[in-house]
């Protein structure tokens, strides 16, 4: 290799390096599902999923019976006039935390005999911006996504419009996400 070619190669490499640097940094934020399904064994659409439907029914009953779906309760919460919602969420977090700790500590397996998988969440600016936007919506609708479904079930059928709009919001996020700061 003569010195001329060597110089050219060096220049090429420099060019490649510069290009790489000037390329927009690809934002690494989860495109995968956030409520992960880590089961390895096969699942049938109805047979395997019916247990989650039943669990959902219990969950919906709790939401209605503890008045968590109530717009008034959310107003009380954001006005600091009642302990109710703070008690519900605080207890749920403590019970959840203890359960996760027990599962990790004693390496409890799923009913299929699989190891329970946990995921670390990676911080991205949506955790701040998106969460604040959701907070604004939460105080207007009196509902986070779960209670929306239970509100419809308990007879406030007009909330189905809220649901449609929430689906539209999710869709628009998918459309513009590459342009948003993360």
């Amino acid at each position, binding site marked *: 290799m003569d010195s001329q070619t060597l110089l050219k190669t060096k220049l090429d490499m420099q060019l490649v390096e510069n290009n790489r640097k000037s390329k927009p940094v690809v934002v690494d934020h989860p495109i995968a*599902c956030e*409520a*992960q*399904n880590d089961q390895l064994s096969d699942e049938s659409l109805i047979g395997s*999923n019916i*247990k*989650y*439907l039943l*669990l*959902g*029914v219990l*969950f*919906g009953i*709790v939401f*209605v019976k*503890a008045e968590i*779906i*109530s*717009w*008034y309760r959310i*107003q009380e919460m*954001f*006005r600091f*006039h009642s302990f*109710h919602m703070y008690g519900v969420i605080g*207890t*749920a*977090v*403590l*019970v*959840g935390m203890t*359960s996760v700790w027990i599962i990790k500590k004693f390496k409890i397996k799923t009913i299929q005999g*699989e190891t329970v998988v946990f995921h670390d969440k990676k911080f*991205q600016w949506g*955790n701040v*911006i998106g*969460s604040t936007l*959701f907070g*604004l*919506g*939460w105080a207007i609708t*009196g509902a986070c*996504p779960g209670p929306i*479904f*239970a*509100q*419809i*079930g*308990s007879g406030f059928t007009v909330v189905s*419009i*809220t649901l449609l*709009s*929430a689906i*539209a*919001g*999710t*869709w*628009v996020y998918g459309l513009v*996400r590459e342009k*948003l700061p993360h």
Partner: protein
Amino acid sequence: MVEIIKQPWTWYVAGVLIGLTVPALLLLGNKHFGVSSSLRHICAACMPSKIPFFQYDWKKEAWNLFFVAGMLLGGIVATQFLSNPDPIQISSQTVQDLQALNIEVDHNLMPSSIFSFDNLFTMKGLIFFVLGGFLVGFGTRYASGCTSGHTIMGLSNLQWPSLVATCCFMIGGLAMTHLIFPWIVKLF
């Protein structure tokens, strides 16, 4: 027994039951508690429109759709069969605040003066259903989770981004309730 169930449930009963959903889902099939993801699956199933964010095997995540369908059914069961006959007990301070904002306080779980089809094509409908719903759907996905995915599942697994998210849920809610809401009600 049924009489007891018909009473509104105390916070710790509800809290324990909601908290137990986390291990229940994990042990039933390695599923991570989260609700807002169902909205994404609905998009992926019904109108993916070649958007990369909606290009995945949503059928693998179908459990999430069964879960939220269950919640809707649970709402029906609780209201039809286990409904509390007494009016809802709201803090008197909140009642005063809402009356000062000209919001009628009734005995249902939701104020009928707002959440009715009569308001669909009015300013109230636009704000409470369309704008509110949009913020919930857009915000939760941008945040990668909602009160279930971050506040309950994320905090249970000691994830600090979830703590950040939870604080921001509160900041958004407080800003709406105390700063923006008094201004919005003037539009009606």
